[in-house]
Structure formats: structure tokens, C-alpha cells
């Protein structure tokens, strides 16, 4: 009941004019980012962090969260109209969404995506309200030992889920961890790999790296490609038929569950839940042959799972202080910049802020529905702006943003350098997400490992003595083992079901 009271107070604050405007601006900017091909939620959120510097902490977090789930939604529009995923998690939406658009049902596809996103996001937030506080209490039982085990499990999952790219993902994880070592040793204070460069004492800035690897790299890639042709569709006809509605209800329900559950597990990432929801939908369908040819359930399940995941992923961040995906890692950076440490004490020490932010998730989801159902035509028009203008504009914004982080040119060079690295990696088909996640988890992992060893007096046996840690370390070993022994099952699952 306590949670409910806090939540109601949170609603009162979130619905105040000021915070409502912040949420609205965030949703609009987020959708914009999602619509612009190439700029995904991680880069978008990172780029827009400097925008929020002048806001108070609550306002800043509300706006950045709105940008995050706005971007998760906005990706749908390009997926349906251009067959280009606006962000990685919308890949699955392209499959049936684009087919629907070719059949003249683009309006319906976008409408069901908006409705699914709203339901998935809202239900996931309801579950978040119920789960987060008990989890935060439980989180105290999570010491450095368990944290280390959890993060190892998370990184193993990232590698394991990379499918046929497993080796590349492993390599990228290790590279991410190596870059995470740069800076002052977290325990003894000696500088490492800094080569006397003062700016490196505090490590490589996470935000400029993300802006480079995701933002600048994607802009470079986008500049190379020819602009895809947009489908001219009558977007005013969006109401799903009775049959379509019936088909979608189950898909939205299942998508919510899949998205929420997977959102709780660090390292899963946004793509897996959408894939999995789609595959499940195809399996339970009586007419699986319709999938890939414009099945509305395909769009509904993927988009619902996508947004349920986006909201569920806030649970480990708020309750444990662990980011489970690159975008959440960026959000965590924003929390810290604003002087807020996510983790078990957040609900105790900043109840007003947390509950206002959680209430704003509901508000934001509703705003997105309003923004997207009637206004979808407006967003579609944006796609007609020539890339050359758009890319230049965004690049300039990135540079200003990177400079604004610490008023230093160093971060700008880091961003541009990593932009080129990211471009090359993408060209060589190396996954970038594992490196980003390793980069943010690296320092936390190192610190928790070394604290663990301080607690145990240097003995590694402590990992075998703590049951939770033992389980957490065993699961990824089994998963990885299974994947290595029978790699075909997994790649088959990914490819055959989606083609």
C-alpha cells in the first residue's frame, strides 16, 4: 500500500505542467530519434544528455526516460514505411510491418504497433511498481560477491546471444573490458594506461564513446547509403478490423510477458525479446504461413515486447543499480550526472524522485499513444527530408553535445575517434553492444571482484560458498556450453523463423 501512496503522489508531481512538458518534449525528441534511421535510443539518449543539464534532477530523468521509450517506439515508423529499422530492436517489425505497408495497410500496422507499445509499456510499468520495492529490499542481500557473479552472467548472455557471431561478440566484450581498465585504479589509486594524459585519469568518458560508436558511426553509414523510398500510404485508415483486433489481443498479451521477463535479466538486450515474442507468436499461430507476408500479430507481438522490455529494464537499474542494456547504461550515466545513485537505497532516499519518474512512465506511454495514433502522418513526412541535411545537423549537435559534457575538446575527439572505430567495426560486421556493455560494467565488475577478495581475505572460494553467486555463475556456463555444443539449434531458431 505504501507503494501505491507514493505512486499517487508521484502522479500528482508527474502531471504538473512542468514535468508534463518535460515528458512531452522527451517523447517528441525520442520519437524523432527513433524515426531518423541510424540514430537508436542509446546514441539518442547520450546525445541529448547535455540538453537536460539546466533542468532539475527529476525533470532531467523524466525527459531522458521519455526520450528512451519514445525512441523505442519511433523506430517502428521507419520499419513499416521504409523497411529500415530506426533502431535495432525494430528489425523484427520490418518483417511483417513492411509487408502490411505494401498491401496498403501501413496505417493499421502503425496503429497496432502504437496500441501494443502502449499496453506493453503500461503493463510492464504496473509490474515494475509491484516488483521494484521488494526487490530493492532483497537487493541488500546482494553483496559484492553476488554483484560480480550477476555481471559475469550478464556479459556471458550477451556473448551467447550473439548467435553465429559469438566469437566476435566475445572479442568485443574483452575489448570493452580493456578500455574500461583505463584510468585510475579503483582501489589503489594508481593511474593505468593513461600515458600521462590527465584527461584519461578518470577513464574514457562513457557518453562520448556511446555517441561515437552508435551515433557518429551510424551517421557515417547512413551517409553512404541511398535514401530508401518511402511508401506512399493512406495513413488515415488505421482502425484494425474486428478480425485483426482479435488476432492482436493474444499477441499483445504474450508480447508483454516475454518483454517484461526478459527485461529483468541483465545482458539480454532489446533485440532478443522482440525476436522471441515473434517466434512464439508464429509457433502458437494456426496459420504460421501468414507470417512474413503481413501478419498483424507479427507486428503486434514484436512492438509490444519491445516496449514492455524497455520499461522492465528499468527494474534492475532502479533496484540494483545495474544497467542491463547500453541504453539503460546511458540512462544510468544521466542519473549519476544528476547526483542520483540508482540502487537499493534509491527508493528510501529519493522516494519523491523515483515515484515521480515511475509515474511519468505511465504518462509518457499515454503521450506516445496520443502522439502516434493521430500524428503518425506528420512523422512520416520527416522521412522526406534529405539525409544530407539531417546527417549534418545531427553531427553538429553531437559535437556540441560532446563538448558540453565537461566543456572539453577531449571528449569531442574521443567521440569522433570512436565514431570512426564504430564505422569500421560495423563494416566488418562486429557487434558493438557487447563492447558498450562491457565498458560500463567493467569498472563495476572490477570493483566488486576486488571488494569480494578484500572481504574473503583473498580467497576465491567465496564464490563457491555463496549459493546465489554459485547459481549465477553456473547458469551462463550451462547456456554457453549448450550453445557451443549445439550451435546449429540456435542459429536455426534465429534465421529460419524470421526469414
Amino acid at each position: 500500500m505504501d507503494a501505491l501512496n507514493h505512486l499517487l503522489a508521484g502522479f500528482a508531481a508527474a502531471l504538473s505542467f512542468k514535468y508534463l512538458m518535460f515528458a512531452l518534449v522527451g517523447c517528441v525528441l525520442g520519437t524523432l530519434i527513433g524515426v531518423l534511421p541510424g540514430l537508436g535510443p542509446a546514441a539518442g539518449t547520450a546525445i541529448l544528455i547535455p540538453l537536460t543539464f539546466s533542468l532539475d534532477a527529476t525533470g532531467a530523468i523524466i525527459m531522458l526516460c521519455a526520450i528512451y521509450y519514445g525512441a523505442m517506439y519511433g523506430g517502428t515508423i521507419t520499419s513499416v514505411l521504409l523497411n529500415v529499422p530506426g533502431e535495432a530492436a525494430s528489425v523484427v517489425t520490418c518483417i511483417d510491418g513492411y509487408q502490411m505497408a505494401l498491401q496498403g495497410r501501413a496505417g493499421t500496422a502503425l496503429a497496432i504497433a502504437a496500441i501494443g507499445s502502449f499496453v506493453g509499456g503500461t503493463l510492464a510499468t504496473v509490474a515494475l511498481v509491484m516488483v521494484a520495492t521488494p526487490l530493492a529490499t532483497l537487493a541488500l542481500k546482494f553483496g559484492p560477491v553476488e554483484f560480480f557473479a550477476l555481471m559475469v552472467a550478464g556479459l556471458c548472455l550477451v556473448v551467447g546471444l550473439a548467435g553465429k557471431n559469438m566469437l566476435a561478440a566475445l572479442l568485443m566484450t574483452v575489448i570493452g573490458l580493456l578500455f574500461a581498465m583505463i584510468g585510475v585504479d579503483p582501489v589503489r589509486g594508481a593511474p593505468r594506461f593513461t600515458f600521462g594524459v590527465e584527461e584519461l585519469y578518470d577513464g574514457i568518458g562513457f557518453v562520448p564513446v556511446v555517441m561515437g560508436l552508435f551515433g557518429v558511426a551510424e551517421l557515417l553509414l547512413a551517409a553512404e547509403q541511398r535514401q530508401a523510398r518511402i511508401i506512399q500510404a493512406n495513413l488515415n485508415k488505421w482502425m484494425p478490423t474486428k478480425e485483426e483486433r482479435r488476432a492482436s489481443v493474444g499477441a499483445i498479451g504474450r508480447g508483454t510477458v516475454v518483454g517484461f521477463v526478459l527485461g529483468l535479466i541483465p545482458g539480454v538486450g532489446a533485440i532478443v525479446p522482440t525476436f522471441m515474442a515473434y517466434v512464439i507468436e508464429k509457433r502458437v499461430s494456426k496459420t504460421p504461413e501468414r507470417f512474413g507476408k503481413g501478419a498483424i500479430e507479427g507486428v503486434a507481438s514484436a512492438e509490444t515486447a519491445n516496449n514492455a522490455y524497455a520499461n522492465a529494464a528499468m527494474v534492475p537499474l532502479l533496484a540494483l543499480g545495474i544497467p542491463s542494456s547500453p541504453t539503460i547504461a546511458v540512462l544510468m550515466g544521466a542519473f549519476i550526472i544528476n547526483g542520483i545513485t540508482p540502487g537499493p537505497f534509491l527508493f528510501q532516499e529519493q522516494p519523491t524522485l523515483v515515484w515521480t519518474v515511475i509515474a511519468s512512465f505511465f504518462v509518457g506511454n499515454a503521450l506516445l499513444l496520443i502522439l502516434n495514433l493521430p500524428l503518425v502522418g506528420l512523422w512520416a513526412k520527416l522521412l522526406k527530408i534529405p539525409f544530407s541535411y539531417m546527417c549534418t545537423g545531427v553531427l553538429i549537435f553531437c559535437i556540441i553535445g560532446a563538448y558540453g559534457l565537461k566543456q572539453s575538446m577531449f571528449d569531442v575527439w574521443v567521440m569522433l575517434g570512436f565514431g570512426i572505430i564504430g564505422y569500421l567495426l560495423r563494416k566488418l560486421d562486429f557487434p558493438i553492444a557487447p563492447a558498450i556493455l562491457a565498458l560500463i560494467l567493467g569498472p563495476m565488475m572490477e570493483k566488486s571482484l576486488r571488494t569480494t577478495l578484500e572481504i574473503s581475505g583473498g580467497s576465491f572460494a567465496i564464490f563457491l560458498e555463496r549459493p546465489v553467486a554459485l547459481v549465477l555463475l553456473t547458469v551462463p556456463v550451462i547456456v554457453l556450453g549448450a550453445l557451443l555444443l549445439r550451435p546449429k539449434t540456435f542459429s536455426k531458431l534465429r534465421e529460419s523463423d524470421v526469414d
Partner: protein
Amino acid sequence: MIIRRRTLLAASAATAATIASPAIAQNYPRRPVQLVVAFAAGGSTDVGARILAAAAEKDLGQTITVVNKPGAGGQIGFTEIARAKPDGYTLGFLNLPAVNTIILDPERKAAFNVDSFIPIINQVLDPGLIWVKADSPYKTLADLTEAAKKTPGKISVCTTGILSDDHLAILMVQEAAKCEFRIVHFDSGTQQLAGVLGGHVDVAFDNVGSVFKRVQSGEVRGLAVTDVERSKFLPQVPCTKELGLTTVISSSTRGVGAPKGTPADVVKAIETAFLKAINSAEMKEKMDAVGLALKPMVGAEYAKYYADTQAQAKKYTEWALKMR
């Protein structure tokens, strides 16, 4: 073209004027002043700094902007202060003994030394606090040290960072009570809280300002304040001096300093404005609310305190380094 040439001329004239005006002090300050805080926004140092900046602005007659440059236990921010142009427009918070121990640890390769800063005025003296979980078997500091004597290196105690004032306080207790702990280094008071309340570590060494509310509410138990007198925020908790541990005196003090070379009259102007702010009733009320004890020190007194801290830190830092 004409316009551009004129702008250029004006710009170069302005540059020349800045270079050729050594007598800046006469009309100091003419533009906003930056106050560098070497710790993150929202932390104890930052909270105190922002209260001070807001109050001193009125007397200084210019905006004072708090700039957080956290990282590496303060090293990033302190370096920034030491390297700033000594014109009075970049000041910074000096956290003692953090500044001292960074200088003393050769592994840190600090880009500054004791003489890099002019200590102008101290604001806060936040004494150390030794605390345990409310249901801990240790009811007093003596319980703890006795137990530590019986089981050397078994009882875990945590700091807020290597060579922090908390770490030095642990070394002082070990020396005074002739016992040995297992030392665990965390980064922040929040981590200590999670560690001790979660049962992962037995004892925390932190400061009064960060935990006094939880001691008052009974959530945790304060064993001792590492000071010569009790804290006004925790009158029920004994101080180490009355417990007979007269060498266990440790605190975190925070004051304003300027880079070496700042003109004396500028330093004086800053001292006057900040001292007036610190002595105001409004300041006292605001600092009481956040549990930070004011300890104004200026001039020779503050300079001596700075030197004494350096000497005290030297002894324990050498110890700590030997144990590595």
C-alpha cells in the same frame, strides 16, 4: 570586410588588455567566479559548497558557479584547481586529508604538491563516525577492539576509499588499541550502507554528516565519533578522546583554496566575503539541517591546520603503503 576587420581589432585589443593588467585585484571580481568541487554533485562536499557559494555571492558581488569535477578520489578536481590561472576566478574546495594523501602516495603521480594551493578559508569539519548495524554484537568501541584482538584480521571494516580519512581512522584505531581488522575499500557512504546493512561487512568508518540521520532513527548504531568532543548532531555517541583513544582523531575538513600565485589582495577579498557568509545565521541553520559542523578557520590558523594534517597523514600513509 570593414566590420570583420573592426571586430578583429577589437578582439586583439581586448586580449592585450587582459594580458597587460596585473593589477586585477583593485576591481576584483569583475566576472563570475568558478568554485571547483572535486566530488560528485549531491555528495557532502557538494552540498556544503553549494550552500556556501549561494551565501558568499552576495558579499562578493558576483555569481559563484559550483563546478563538479569528480573522479579518482578527488585527484581530478584538485589537479584542475592547482592548474587553474591564479587570477581569483577559479577557486576550489580543498578536502583534507584527501589532498594530503594523494600527494603522499607516489603511485598516484599527483600533478600537484602541498605548495600548489593557497588555503584561504575552512568551512566544514566533519568528524569520523564508527558505526555498526543496529543488531550488531558490538555495543561499544571497546567491544569491537576486544573482539578484534581475539580474532585478528577477521572482523571486516570498510572505508570510503583507500587513504581516505576513514582509512586513516582505521589505522589509528588499530595502532591505539593494538588490534587488527580486515579492511575493505568501498567508494561511497551508500556502498558502505549496503555492505553493512546487508551483512557483508561488519563495521563502517564514515563521517557524522553522511550517517547521522540513520543513527538518530536507530537504524544503525554509532560506536564513537573520532574527535576530541562529541558531535552536536549525535550527543549520545561518545567521542574517542573520552574513551581514552586520544590518538584517534580523524575528520574530513573542507575549505576554499586558490591556486598558488593568486595575488594576496584577491585572496583577502575572497576571505572577507566567504568568512562573512560562513558566520551568518542563515549558513548555520542550513548546515545544521544537513548535519555538517561549521569550523571557520582563516589565515595562519588554517595554514597551520593544513600543515598539521599533512604531517599526520604522512605517518599513516607510509604505514598503509607498507601494508600493500
